């Protein structure tokens, strides 16, 4: 190891032999130079501080207050809101349900979107129309879609139940079998279906954009080398698609974890919070205890950050390839 004698490098990064020698600079000038980008970055930094960091701080301070349901701050509550959250007998079930909700939706969305993207990447008559049609669930308000599905599942005369009744699957209207949204397990399955339905367009388009970036020569080379269809897909398409896939999965993970309108519209998280994810539950307890709801917000926020960091860590190679 060769020691570099330039004073300001001592104690910072270990010097590398490969680095070209830099001219010595006065420390003040170095500081100035480091600050030079600040005027350009300042608007972004101020924006992040105002719309991201400040609300996070507010959320945290709220979570340590005792605030009643009418919004009156009754003073500091220490960590009691957090104790209440962690001692809530419903928390384990809600967190488990949230995990299932996120994993099921993201997995189904990605698999289906991969198929769709492949299909829409082919040239066929009417492709433009089908591509436009795919946007519909995305363009429609999620709340609207959820209301439509809720009525389609009405136990007495919902169109899905009428169809299933004619097919002989649902035996009687108004019965337990027809009341899909009344049974927590069935309700979760239907709501996961709706969530997948509204997540597919974005994911498909993200993957479609990824497919468009794969150069045709790679496929030509593969054909010349005699690779079959499956081999081509798994050895070329999928690896080259990974950056797009990573971004799509990441955005879906956060979206689905924070998803509120589907569950709130279709079941309101009930009965007895048995279809609530942590986001919906957080909203429900806001109705009677803002501090405790704030504590659960902080917990949710931590979970999202954790998911994102773990996911980015696991996919650092694919992100590197993207650059």
């Amino acid at each position, binding site marked *: 190891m060769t020691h570099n004698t330039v004073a300001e490098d001592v104690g910072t990064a270990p010097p590398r032999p490969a680095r070209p020698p830099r001219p010595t600079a006065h420390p003040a000038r170095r500081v100035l130079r480091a600050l030079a980008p600040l005027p350009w970055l300042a608007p972004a930094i101020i924006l992040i501080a105002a*719309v*991201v960091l400040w*609300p*996070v701080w*507010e*959320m945290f301070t*709220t979570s340590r207050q005792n*605030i*009643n*349901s*009418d*919004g*009156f701050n009754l003073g500091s509550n220490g960590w009691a809101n957090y104790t209440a959250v962690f001692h809530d007998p419903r928390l384990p079930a809600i967190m488990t349900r949230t995990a299932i909700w996120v994993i099921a939706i993201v997995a189904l969305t990605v698999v289906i979107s991969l198929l769709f993207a492949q299909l829409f990447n082919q040239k066929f008559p009417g492709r433009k129309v089908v591509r436009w049609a795919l946007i519909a669930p995305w363009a429609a308000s999620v709340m609207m879609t959820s209301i439509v599905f809720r009525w389609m599942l009405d*136990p*007495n005369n919902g169109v899905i139940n009428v169809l299933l009744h004619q097919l002989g699957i649902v035996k*009687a209207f*108004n*019965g*337990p*079998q*027809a*009341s899909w*949204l*009344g*049974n927590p397990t069935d309700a979760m399955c239907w709501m996961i279906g709706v969530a997948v339905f509204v997540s597919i367009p974005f994911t498909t388009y993200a993957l479609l954009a990824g497919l468009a970036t794969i150069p045709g020569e790679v496929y030509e080379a593969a054909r010349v080398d005699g690779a079959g269809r499956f081999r081509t897909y798994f050895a070329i398409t999928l690896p080259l698609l990974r950056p797009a896939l990573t971004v799509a999965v*990441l*955005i879906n993970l*956060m*979206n689905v974890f*924070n998803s509120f309108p589907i569950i709130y519209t279709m*079941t*309101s*998280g*009930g*009965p*007895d*919070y*048995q279809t609530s994810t942590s*986001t919906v539950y*957080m909203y*429900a307890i*806001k*109705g*009677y205890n*803002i501090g405790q*709801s*704030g504590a659960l*917000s*902080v917990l*949710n*926020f931590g979970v*999202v*950050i954790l998911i*994102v*960091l773990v996911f*980015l860590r696991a996919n*650092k190679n694919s*992100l*590197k390839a993207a*650059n």
Partner: protein
Amino acid sequence: MNIHSKKRRLAAAAAVGISAAMVLSACSSSSSKSPAASSGGQVTLHFFGADYGTAGTANSTQLYWQNIATAFHQANPNITVDIQTIDWTDFPNKLKTMLQAKNYPDIIEGDAPQEYAQEGIAYPASDVLSASTLSNLIPTFAKQGDYQGTEYGIPFTTSTRALYYNKKLFTAAGITAAPTTWAQLQTDAQKITALGNSTIGYGLPLGSEEAQAESYMWMLGDGGGYLTNGQYTINSAANIKAFQFMDGLVKAGVTEASPGTVDRTALWNDFASGDVGMVGGSPAVVPIIQAAGKLQSTDWATAPFPGESGPLTDPLGVDDQIVALNVHNQKSAISAFLNFAYQDQYQAAFDKLYDLLPATTSAANALATDPIFGSFVSAIATSSAYPSNPNWSDVSTQIKNTIGGALANPTTVLGQIQTFATSQN
């Protein structure tokens, strides 16, 4: 380069994540409206109330209040009343969100006054209502607005509950009289369900719209209730037994499926279409039946709600109260508006519009001999009301959200509500 760009990506992704999380996580706002000038000049009062009809239609309560506000503005050109109404299902959430954002209405119709009185933001009723109007309020309900001996809530409209039954279905099922006990109700519901055609024997609405009312009617049936001597006893043995019986009805398949997710309006509509044999309800079911046009007035009737061993003598009586908030210091304007709105003609118009019962003694006396409403009015004197504890509003929200789960797990769920009610006092 890679290290830097990775860091940048991490930061960007973290920022995206944080923003996404924030959108749904943050729920704190400290913006407060400055009180409008109270002396001289124009005054705007904000009224927030429940919609007893259907928004966007002619029977929306928005129109009822708007008419009063317009007439009032003509008589008092310097006071404008801004009216906002919302359906019962969304009412608690909307109201709490407004209050939490420090966006205070001046007058609230439809919520219990005790919590506001405790917080010191409510006017006593005597500050905003003339003595003659005040003394005309039905005593049973006026007492419901008390907090520590002072009356804050002003009953606006009232109702008592009874059992509606479809006489056509009863005849078809070979039943001759309305049930008076739980056991008879179950037998009758079974016979009606056996008619087939997806007919619901007994409609049991435990969805969030008004689960606290349906639950209370059953609790009263075997001597239970929300309170014993002013203390919450939500998980009492009698209440657990009532829910066990209700669960028996659900398991027997004589109610609609999954009552915990079904709201009362849905079942009242189904009753009006002739698909439900029996349902508990207030006089507000009558206009729904008339609007549906499926049942003639001879096809249905009401009876006292059955109890375990006999009909309820102390049925549920509900009064919706008005409370005036002092946050904007508009005492004189609020007082002028409320005295205007409590005129007999407006009380009568409201009762006519929704077939609910009046809150004033004189108006109730006028209805005592009415063929449909007479029995509801006569039940007022002995009716059981909701608790008037300061935290009832929060407890009621919790009941609406969770009590549907008490069918399968009465001990656990009622126990959780009891813990909630007693820990929030």
